[in-house]
């Protein structure tokens, strides 16, 4: 997978994403960085835990990145990273960074990739609330996407 880097790990690095996607031929770099926020559906959130099928997630993120290159050009550099394990408020949950010669490809690919991750990556999120309760976040079924 040329110009693609995918990873699942506990600590994500924006600097690593920037370094990977920089290049002399690339005048544009677009990113989406997801952080853990302190509320969800009206409930105060204290932190959350990501549960990830790592080998499958890496394969699916890789396919998403390859599809983005098919749509917006092989020259795109794409860095995708998702956090696993516990994160407190403000922790970086996901990084999507894309670079290209011109801005349109990077911006469009970045927006498309994060939506694909939301609906297709085998990632589950358990929220810890301030009242001590915990709950798995409702998600999107993969079943209708493969039939």
């Amino acid at each position, binding site marked *: 997978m040329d110009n693609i880097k995918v990873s699942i790990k506990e600590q994500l690095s924006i600097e690593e994403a920037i370094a990977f996607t920089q290049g002399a031929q690339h005048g544009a770099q677009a990113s989406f960085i997801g952080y853990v926020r302190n509320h969800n559906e009206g409930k105060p959130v204290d932190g959350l835990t990501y549960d990830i099928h790592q080998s499958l997630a890496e394969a699916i993120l890789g396919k998403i990145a390859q599809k983005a290159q098919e749509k917006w050009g092989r020259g795109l550099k794409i860095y995708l990273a998702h956090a696993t394990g516990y994160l407190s408020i403000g922790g970086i949950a996901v990084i999507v960074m894309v670079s290209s010669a011109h801005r349109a490809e990077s911006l469009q690919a970045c927006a498309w990739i994060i939506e694909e991750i939301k609906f297709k990556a085998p990632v589950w999120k358990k929220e810890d609330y301030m009242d001590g309760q915990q709950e798995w976040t409702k998600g*999107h079924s*993969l079943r209708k996407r*493969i039939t």
Partner: protein
Amino acid sequence: MITVTISPFGHMREFFNEPMKITIADQNQATLRKTLLKQFPDAGHIIELCVFSDEKRILCEQEKLEEGAKLFILPPVCGG
């Protein structure tokens, strides 16, 4: 009859948290799903929406299961 091992993720961890061997009457995923529904009736709403995978890919619904397969049950996802 075949026996497969199935491991949970996400919401399914509320019902079993370790890889579990399960014997089913045939190689159909529908049979595996029915067996899980019977074993975990309180998880019915989740099991109906789940898919099965191996280490690297999500199985197609019609794909036959192999004896000894190591599978994962994947509830609705919420990455990002």
